[in-house]
């Protein structure tokens, strides 16, 4: 078996002003071809205005075992959400 093309993660901006969103992956020999392939594979139905590709091997992921220590602490910080603060009606929209 010859050397396999590396795997790339594809991110597409669906509309102007939105974040790029992960849509899937594909194989390509390099970044330039990964972009072209992404255009052909993931925008067949006008899904995007901009594409990013990242080598899958370059993605660092958080450890699922750390889920509690990473994400639990934010659970009780309710004051980060605007609904935590009661503003009198007569002040108007804020």
């Amino acid at each position: 078996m010859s050397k396999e093309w590396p795997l790339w993660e594809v991110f597409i901006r669906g509309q102007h002003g939105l974040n790029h969103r992960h849509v899937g992956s594909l194989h390509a020999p390099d970044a330039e071809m990964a972009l072209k392939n992404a255009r052909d594979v993931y925008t067949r139905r006008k899904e995007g205005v901009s594409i990013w590709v990242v080598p899958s091997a370059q993605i660092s992921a958080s450890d699922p075992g750390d889920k509690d220590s990473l994400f639990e602490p934010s659970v009780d910080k309710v004051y980060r959400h605007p609904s935590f603060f009661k503003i009198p009606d007569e002040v108007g929209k804020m």
Partner: protein
Amino acid sequence: MYAQMIKTDAAKVRDLSEMSAEERAFQERIDRGEKIEPTDWMPEGYRKTLIRQIGQHAHSEIVGQLPEGNWITRAPTLERKAILLAKVQDEAGHGLYLYCAAETLGVSRDELIELLHAGKMKYSSIFNYPTLTWADIGAVGWLVDGAAIMNQVPLQRTSYGPYSRAMIRICKEESFHQRQGFDIMMKMAGGSEAQKRMAQDALDRFWYPSLMMFGPSDKDSVHSAQSMAWKIKINTNDELRQKFVDQTVPQAEYLGLTVPDPDLKWNEDKGGYDFSEPDWNEFFEVLKGNGPCNEERLGARVKAWEDGAWVREGLMAHADKRSVAKVAAE
């Protein structure tokens, strides 16, 4: 189904009390409807079964390009040609999404393809049947995609995240596939005498192979029970087959075509049709490689892969040269 008779390595489905702490936590997550992601702990059996299932599903998509591809160059109008080409292209895309989902489980796409070519992995039995007339393109879209959708829609809720996301994308794209098939059938069934004959003949040949797609009854299968516990299989084969028949018979009636089953009749008590089983000996022969087109289908895939080796290697070699040149320049 595009994945048929998937083995799980399970001798029996164990209940929570028989499991290790890790396994129990895993099963409880699935029972709560949580998604399992690639970096999460998972039992080896779950991982292996998924590789088999997603791999077979992916193989079915790309082998499935061939029977319909057989008519791309002969489509009767330019519009039909474009629609069919777009549809078969979608199948390639679906194969691609599914291979990527399988790759998150620690197997490479090239490895899976080599296993297919070596006959060590299967694809759906249905694609070993020939497409003999243009009406077959209608029948494949209507019946084969129709049967596939029955399975794929619930699989959007499967427990494995990457598989579920691939299925969501696939279902979204497939929504036009069955319709285009039915649209062809409507034209044929409402057309000239010859076209009507073609339409009936296509239904006659594809009816039972379509029923076989769901696989033999698995109500007593340990593998199915295990897969259902893991939520990588959502319905039994019989449930899906019944649903398919109930949905399809009225459509055939609308077309003025006759389902080739003299024993087909509505059963008021169960609120569904009674129908004849397909010939399961034929099914097993097809799986063994003795279907009408097994040799051609696998042969075409192997040829494409071997003929394309120099292209894959050439493009990789050039990319390597560029990256070396880039490093040298920095």
